[in-house]
């Protein structure tokens, strides 16, 4: 067991930390949000240049050849900076799907485009009544002479409005919540109708309608095992992103407590407030431990063991981020419920992470059903 980073990992960490420090202060971030796409193409090109878009893409496909630990480093840094570019949608989710649920020729065709920052992918998967059941797929796929024809409604498609290509789940056979019979298809965004909107955390998403769209390519006709794996990796990424965001939020809160004066002294001098900040720290350490655990276990081949670990991490991180987010706001006072101050924006991103890929209750329920967490 070794918690230390390798030389390469340290270099990656330094470079992504520096990037976030230099390009992502709160005022700079506002200009990115105001851009035409709702995020910065210039940043995207910079990430490509630094190799961040190919961190987990193999060297054969023009990537860095890294794994979970490398993704964790990026996630933490992006969490600290509240980075809004479509990294999660394109690199983490779509990249993961291509790596775990696509044939070699498809990987050869599309992974280099992700790593180079040339093609933007989004994952069109969630449907209106799926709640947190990841294998809920009602969209249909029908084989015709023209190819696979997809019909259905996809919802909450992260960065679906600016994506070039969509990875779409559609049912080849079976019932809406069967894990078998789920196909994964490549669709050009121009072939669908979409309604883009902002999300609470200043990112973007879209509602996508597939009205007899012919798929451009088939990734898999039995995609669930690969999707499950990609989603587990994505959960580990979100856990690490939350840890980065929580750490920064605590640092902001502690700084604020040391400068804000009431009753003639810094509020940091009040023990009752100090202890609340310490409780945030304790929760962050537990979350960090489980984010690391999730990162390690996301590479586990046994799907059952992997699921337990990911669920456990998601529960811990979900609980931690609730406490840390709420307490950060409370310790700040009114300033933290304003748009013009950064703390509230961390609170918002953290809140949305909790409701992504299964919330705390859903994962607790899953573990309770499985019998034991370990």
């Amino acid at each position: 067991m070794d918690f230390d980073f390798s030389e390469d990992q340290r270099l990656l960490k330094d470079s992504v930390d520096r990037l976030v420090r230099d390009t992502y202060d709160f005022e700079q971030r506002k200009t990115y949000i105001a851009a035409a796409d709702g995020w910065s193409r210039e940043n995207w090109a910079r990430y490509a240049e630094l190799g961040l878009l190919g961190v987990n893409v193999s060297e054969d496909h023009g990537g860095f050849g890294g794994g979970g630990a490398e993704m964790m480093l990026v996630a933490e840094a992006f969490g600290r900076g509240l980075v809004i570019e479509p990294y999660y949608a394109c690199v983490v989710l779509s990249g993961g799907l291509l790596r775990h649920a696509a044939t070699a020729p498809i990987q050869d065709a599309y992974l280099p485009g992700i790593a180079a920052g040339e093609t933007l992918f989004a994952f069109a998967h969630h449907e209106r009544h799926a709640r947190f059941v990841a294998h809920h797929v009602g969209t249909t796929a029908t084989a015709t002479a023209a190819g696979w024809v997809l019909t259905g409604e996809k919802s909450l498609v992260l960065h679906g409005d600016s994506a070039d290509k969509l990875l779409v789940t559609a049912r080849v056979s079976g019932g809406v919540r069967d894990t078998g019979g789920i196909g994964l298809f490549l669709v050009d965004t121009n072939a669908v109708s979409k309604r883009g909107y902002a999300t609470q955390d200043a990112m973007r998403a879209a509602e996508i309608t597939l009205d007899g769209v012919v798929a451009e390519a088939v990734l898999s006709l039995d995609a669930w095992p690969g999707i499950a794996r990609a989603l587990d990796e994505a959960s580990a990424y979100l856990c690490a992103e939350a840890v980065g965001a929580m750490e920064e939020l605590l640092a902001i809160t502690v700084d604020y407590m040391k400068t804000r004066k009431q009753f003639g002294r810094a509020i940091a001098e009040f023990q009752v407030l100090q202890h609340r900040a310490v409780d945030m720290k304790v929760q962050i350490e537990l979350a960090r431990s489980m984010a690391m655990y999730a990162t390690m276990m996301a590479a586990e081949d046994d799907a059952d063991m992997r699921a337990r670990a990911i669920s456990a991490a998601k529960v811990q991180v979900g609980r931690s981020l609730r406490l840390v987010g709420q307490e950060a706001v409370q310790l700040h006072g009114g300033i933290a419920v304003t748009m013009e101050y950064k703390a509230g924006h961390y609170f918002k991103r953290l809140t949305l992470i909790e409701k992504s890929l299964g919330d705390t209750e859903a994962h607790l329920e899953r573990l309770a059903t499985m019998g034991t967490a370990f």
Partner: protein
Amino acid sequence: MDLSFTAEERQFREELRDFFHTAIPDRIRRKLREGLHPSKEEHVEAQRILNARGLAVPNWPVEWGGQDWTPVQHYFWQDELQQASVPFPVPFNCTMVGPVIAQFGSLAQKQRFLARAANVDDWWCQGFSEPGAGSDLASLRTAAVLEGDHWVINGQKTWTSYAQNADWIFVLARTDMTVKKQEGISFILVDMKTPGITWRPIQTIDGGREVNEVFFDNVRVPAENLVGQVNKGWDYAKFLLGNERTGIARIGISKARMKRIRELAEQELDGDRRLIDDPVFRKKLVSVEIELKALEMTQLRVVAQERHLEKGKPNPMSSVLKIKGSELQQATTELMMDVMGPYIAPFFEEHDLEFGNEPPVGPPDAATAAPMYFNMRKVSIYGGSNEIQRNILAKAVLGF
């Protein structure tokens, strides 16, 4: 970064597990498993078996019987020992006074005390807390005055665990009244048979007889029993409490409790449904398991940080372990009461439980569930209360 254990690490762990399960008699381990208290003789028996294999004091310097292990190996030792329900080597000897003597004591003290402590030829107890000095330990008033070649000690200690078993007591005493309170304290080793020492048991709400008051009335102690330098005792006490905190998470004990809770919940019927099949109960169980895993990973991270830290310097992160570890130990006692339901009510003297003088009322372990819950409220109070741990973190980590 590689968070999996190596093949050698896993083998080391399995060998320890085998040894603990086979070498330590089940009649002793069963008691801990079922929430009973092993006797002094059983503690000594178990520790001597460990000591013969070099497994009683692995945390000590190698020349005094310790092991040259990696932090991960040390963690396995503790975790497997606790999971096997082996009585922990007498902590007053092994994690408290032993390391202090090994680090700060004279050669003569090391030769005289360390091997005997490792083998429990002497049973030590702790003379720190006083009626007026709990969390504010440094305000202690028990005084030692040098008269010729003897310290003369007067005062009172309290919460002294197992004074009734003890041959020796290590005492924090005030040796200079004129300086800042932390700077006038010394660390002195006292033979419990010295004239002028008396003790009185304090029964705790679980019915247990674990803690005592110890009184010092003109107790004359040879000057050579001072550890290290005069008036430096506070430094040694902080060193001792720092050591205590790293081990205080007791994750292995909580794991063993969770295993037992599961076993009992699989047997216990609610009408014709097993308690383990109650979805609400299962969620509670899984919740604690998750937190235990998070704590274990945190403990491993703290363990891994050790080699980057200055030797002997306390890691403030161990306060996180103390806070969360104590809360989880307490959480397991609540879960156990959930299993027992109304059967937490009957009270039996431990003597009757141990010797089967009375048939049990209700499910197995019911009689120890409430006492365990009552007793374990102590863990967030002792070893530096959880509020003191928060003070430490506020200062050392958050810079308040």
